[in-house]
């Protein structure tokens, strides 16, 4: 009994810890995307915050100054992103990818020059780390975001600009200015998420330390239908799966039971898609060209046949031996869920209408 309570407590706190960077970045993404600007750059924004915070904290010995500078760096990078996408109407996904690549290189470049290292900052002493404040901040920001979005004039304008910029413009809202604000806020929040990674969860900045968290945050935002509370729940779910992978490491399971669980999940996902196809009232009379159908069919068949052959081929005793759960199976859960949700299950996930479209004021 006691063991279970300990396990649950550990899982709970690990989940909170792992949710924090996702949540901060996802809330950041929310401000940007609700204003109509796609934010694939979250990953890069997080990295800019993580690096700047760690570097400044190292030099000043004060994590608060570090965090402030990190927020400044995130906002600055977001501002550059905003200039390109809002003012010069550059493709948002492409520019976002550019920001991500830039932030893969720039921290390494700077730390190479500043610390003569191969892409990481020196260790930051424990006294100068910030293990709790960002967690607190992340969850407070959910309430703040909810309030700002639904109860303030700014929130109303933000949503209006993301749904129907010309109408907002006609009503006297400065579309560009609101979008700038949305993107810059997203940079600031994502930077705090990154800062938590470098001086909260660990004690230094390492190359590419976000490891795709910006993209998971983006997935959580879509999963949460671009709303603050649902986004928090999605982040908690994704944080929980990550916590689970850590907790399950080293625990042994009998192979056939494990296989059964995986099989049930795979069948469930396939069934969901079949049901989803059935839900479509619009019957499509477009047929795919024969070679595509044949290629896809043959590939799927060969894959299935090969997997079956291997499953049968290993022999009976194999299935009664023990193994640990491969972490990869749990890692892919958020990604598969996102695809499933995006395909229109669990209620339609509708993006802000003007998402991704630059706004050209009529002259």
């Amino acid at each position, binding site marked *: 009994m006691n063991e279970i309570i300990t396990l649950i407590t550990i899982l709970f706190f690990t989940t909170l810890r792992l949710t924090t960077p996702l949540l901060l970045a996802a809330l950041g993404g929310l401000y940007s995307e609700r204003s109509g600007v*796609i934010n*694939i750059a979250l990953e890069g924004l997080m990295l800019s915050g993580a690096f700047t915070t760690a570097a400044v904290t190292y030099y000043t010995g004060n994590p608060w100054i570090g965090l402030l500078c990190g927020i400044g760096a995130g906002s600055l990078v977001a501002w550059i992103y905003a*200039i*390109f996408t809002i003012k*010069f*109407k*550059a*493709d948002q*996904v*492409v*520019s976002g*990818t*550019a*920001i*991500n*690549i*830039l932030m*893969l*290189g*720039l*921290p*390494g*470049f*700077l730390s*190479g*020059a500043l610390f*003569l290292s*191969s*892409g990481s900052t020196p260790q930051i002493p424990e006294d100068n780390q910030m293990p709790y404040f960002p967690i607190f901040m992340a969850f407070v920001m959910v309430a703040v975001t909810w309030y700002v979005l639904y109860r303030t004039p700014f929130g109303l304008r933000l949503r209006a600009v993301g749904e129907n910029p010309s109408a907002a413009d006609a009503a006297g809202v400065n579309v560009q200015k609101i979008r700038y604000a949305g993107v810059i806020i997203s940079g600031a929040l994502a930077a705090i998420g990154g800062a938590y990674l470098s001086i909260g969860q660990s004690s230094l900045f390492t190359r590419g330390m976000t490891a*795709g968290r910006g*993209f998971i945050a*983006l*997935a959580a935002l*879509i999963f949460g239908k671009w709303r603050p509370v649902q986004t928090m729940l999605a982040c908690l779910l994704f944080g929980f799966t990550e916590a689970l992978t850590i907790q399950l490491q080293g625990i042994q399971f009998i192979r056939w039971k494990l296989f059964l669980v995986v099989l049930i999940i795979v069948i469930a996902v396939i069934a969901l898609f079949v049901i*989803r*196809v059935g839900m*479509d009232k619009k019957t*499509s009379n*477009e*047929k*795919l*060209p024969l070679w*595509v159908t044949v*290629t*896809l069919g043959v*590939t*799927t068949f060969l894959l299935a046949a090969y997997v079956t052959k291997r499953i049968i081929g290993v022999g009976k005793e194999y299935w009664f031996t023990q193994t640990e759960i*491969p972490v*990869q*199976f749990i*890692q*892919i859960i958020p*990604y*598969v869920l*996102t*695809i499933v949700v*995006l*395909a*229109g299950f669990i209620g339609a996930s509708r*993006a802000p209408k003007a998402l991704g479209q630059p706004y050209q004021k009529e002259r």
Partner: protein
Amino acid sequence: MKLLREILFPLVAVVAAFLIGGILILIVGDNPLTAFGWLISSAFSYPVGIGYTLFYTTPLIFTGLAVAVAFRCGLLNIGAEGQLYVAAFAAAWIGLSAANLPMILLAPISCLIAILGGAFWGAIPGVLKARFGSHEVINTIMLNFIAVAILGYLTQYHYRTAGDPIMQTAQISPNAHVPRLGQFIPGMPEFIPLNFAFILALLACVFVYVFLWKTKFGYEIRATGLNPTAAEYGGIAPRKQIVVAMALSGALAGMVGIHEVLGYRYVYQDSFSANVGFTGIAVALLGRNHPLGVLFAAFFFGVLERGAIPIDAFTEKVSKDIVDILKALVILFVAGEAMFRVLFSKLGVMKEQ
């Protein structure tokens, strides 16, 4: 005149990227001219430099073409990374499982399997978009992660040689290897991993050009990309084109598997690709989504990749990260070319449009 306009902005973007990169190098206290000098001189020295440059160019041609084909259909494929991983693994898998086939069969079959693997992984977001209308950008990002995880699992638990500290499969059968070009070019040492895939890449450029501009299928894809509604009125089924374009895009990205596994490493190595799929976006963008442009753009980025190593080694403070920075700046400046239009029209060089 039209051609001039097409290449003017990419050139301006490259110059601007190098200017800003140079300023960054100045800030950290090194000489940008020496750094860029190393970059250029090492990339063009014969035969080793140019051999490696072309070696780095090859996968970028494939991913650049992949992104360009999808883009011509109005789709942004940021999943080339996942598609090339699936293809590479598929190629390694056939090279391991059918090791006894003679070379004349196994090598072409392996190439074909790589292409099919990429096409399969690319078709998934295509089908999802065509069937459910879900956005291909998010789906391809998710499929990248899923591919890496599943292939990591397969490598770690099923195909790794026991005790191997590196996450990689066992060596594939020598019968699956595609030849290195060093054997055929006088003066080119054989240790340079430039291989048959480079020839394939050049052929792929020709193929994509003919397919997109000289065939009915290509016309339908381009029509869908320009205006799906109008295409539908014209009797083209846009949803079909989406799947075809994504499958083709995936197939092209998958050919990186031929280059990496069958021609270079002879194993599937976990996360071998250094963002080749993402650089493909830059290549396609800089090359204006045209095969010839892609070829030149890929060569440009190949020069950068090759030059990264000597920059790292021979300058005091500049690390190879400068190459990532230059890449990112080029993408930004090409995507935001409106900036230069405004600038040029203010300077009076160009009429405002």
